[in-house]
């Protein structure tokens, strides 16, 4: 039984740092700091207000310590939990608890990566695993390829279904001026692209970019007096089912089933109450798995669900409205960008790509190889 109260905390500021390809020798700490001051400015707060630092990056082992130094915050409450790309959804849950407990009052959650400039091998070197590494899996892609292989085998999902996810993401990206890849893309373009780990081609795989950003969280009471409409944290849930793909209990059923159920219960909402989904699409199969596991369709029907442009602009259910990790930006760990987009959409600030119904959003982070699943349900003022 959770002690956390529905809507007790809110996101009041959100911003990207420089993204795409950043200036030479820009550090991940520079990007986090840039994101933090931009998000504070968005909230109408200043650095002096910050007393909680939540962050994670693969390029600074003790990132919270480094940020405490960078921001000169010796007394800050810090948390640098790292469970891969979903770390930032976990940070939202932790920040909400810390704010409720009075451990901090203005929490920033930050991320930075120079994965594109530094090279993937340097930015995120893989740990040697004696039971997997000798077989030369191209991780993480190979792990997701195996999940896709099982999904195709069990449910008849096709490579065209997977491609539909990538095409929808690209159409959203074409509406987002900050998106990294806005070139036209069709189903054949995905299928005929360079194969990475069958059945996934390079267009089924996320981008490799630089980037970072931050969000600001405060109590619901304090949020009411700030310059932007609060985006309330209605419910959170996490589940870590494994760390390596050979230990995933079931390749077609992810921890999102448990994390989503927990978040829905806390929020008092069901899938039919959700206006949009921001789902961690490191690979095209992810979107299909998470739509199923978060209850937007039955298990095995994700391929059919995404067909005929249902999740693309103009479709019945908006998903990954910034263009996602597949087309907007994917600097190593993507989870923070899901939150930034959901905040923009709920506030109605998203310009050409703004969705019509935008009271509620489900944000779903994924870390590792479908390993660490973390769900956050956000809502605007009408949901409290």
């Amino acid at each position, binding site marked *: 039984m959770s002690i956390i109260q529905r809507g007790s905390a809110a996101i009041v500021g959100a911003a990207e740092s420089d993204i795409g390809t950043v200036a030479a020798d820009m550090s991940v700490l520079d990007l986090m700091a840039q994101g933090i001051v931009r998000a504070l400015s968005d909230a109408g707060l200043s650095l002096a207000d910050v007393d909680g630092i939540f962050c994670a990056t693969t390029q600074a082992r003790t990132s919270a310590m480094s940020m405490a130094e960078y921001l000169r915050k010796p007394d800050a409450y810090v948390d640098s939990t790292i469970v891969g790309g979903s770390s930032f959804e976990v940070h939202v849950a932790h920040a909400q608890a810390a704010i409720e407990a009075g451990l901090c009052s203005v929490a920033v959650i930050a991320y930075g990566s120079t994965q594109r400039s530094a090279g993937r091998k340097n930015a995120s070197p893989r740990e040697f695993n004696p039971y997997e590494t000798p077989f*030369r899996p191209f991780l993480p892609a190979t792990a997701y390829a195996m999940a896709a*292989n099982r999904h195709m085998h069990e449910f008849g999902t096709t490579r065209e279904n997977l491609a539909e996810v990538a095409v929808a993401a690209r159409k959203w990206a074409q509406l987002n001026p900050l998106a990294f890849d806005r070139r036209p893309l069709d189903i054949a373009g995905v299928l005929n692209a360079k194969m990475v780990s069958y059945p996934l081609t390079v267009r089924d795989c996320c981008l490799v970019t630089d980037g970072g950003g931050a969000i600001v969280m405060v109590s619901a009471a304090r949020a009411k007096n700030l310059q932007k409409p609060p985006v309330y944290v209605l419910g959170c849930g996490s589940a870590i089912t494994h760390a*390596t793909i050979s230990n995933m209990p079931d390749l077609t059923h992810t921890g999102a089933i448990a994390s989503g159920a927990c978040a829905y219960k806390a929020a008092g909402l069901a899938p039919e109450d959700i206006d949009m989904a921001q789902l961690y699409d490191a690979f095209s199969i992810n979107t299909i798995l998470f739509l199923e596991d978060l209850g937007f369709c039955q298990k095995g029907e994700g391929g059919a669900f995404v067909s005929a442009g249902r999740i693309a602009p103009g479709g019945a259910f908006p998903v990954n409205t910034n263009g996602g990790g597949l087309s907007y930006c994917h600097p190593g760990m993507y989870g923070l960008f899901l939150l930034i987009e959901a905040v923009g959409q709920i506030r109605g600030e998203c310009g050409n790509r703004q969705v019509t119904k935008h009271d509620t959003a489900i944000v779903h982070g994924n870390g590792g190889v479908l390993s660490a699943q973390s769900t956050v349900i956000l809502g605007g003022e009408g949901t409290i």
Partner: protein
Amino acid sequence: MENAKQSPLGIYNAYLREGKLAYQFSPTSGKAVFYPRVICPDTGSENLEWRFSKGQGTVHATTVVHPQQGDPFNVALIDLTEGYRMMSRVEGIDPMAVKIGMRVTFRVYEQGGDEPPLPVFTPMGG
């Protein structure tokens, strides 16, 4: 307490050098344990028995990795009949011909040098 003389990985690799595919069995949970550990993950018990697999399994999932250089190759998850799963590869056939449900047999692949041998698989009866 005395320090352990050998690590779980050390024991596993020593058996592989003898041509044996070893795994652990936990009497307290009644289940196979793989990868090898110092405790049973279900019960916390340090009582783990080493057993030898018959080396027969089924392909649970498969992919073909296309490296930047060199030929595409297979990576697969294999379900052993003793009730555990491991990553490996299926050799001896076109990597795209490896399919879910295919029955496979273990054999040792010598990596050479100081590297431990690897457990790999070939199609059963092939």
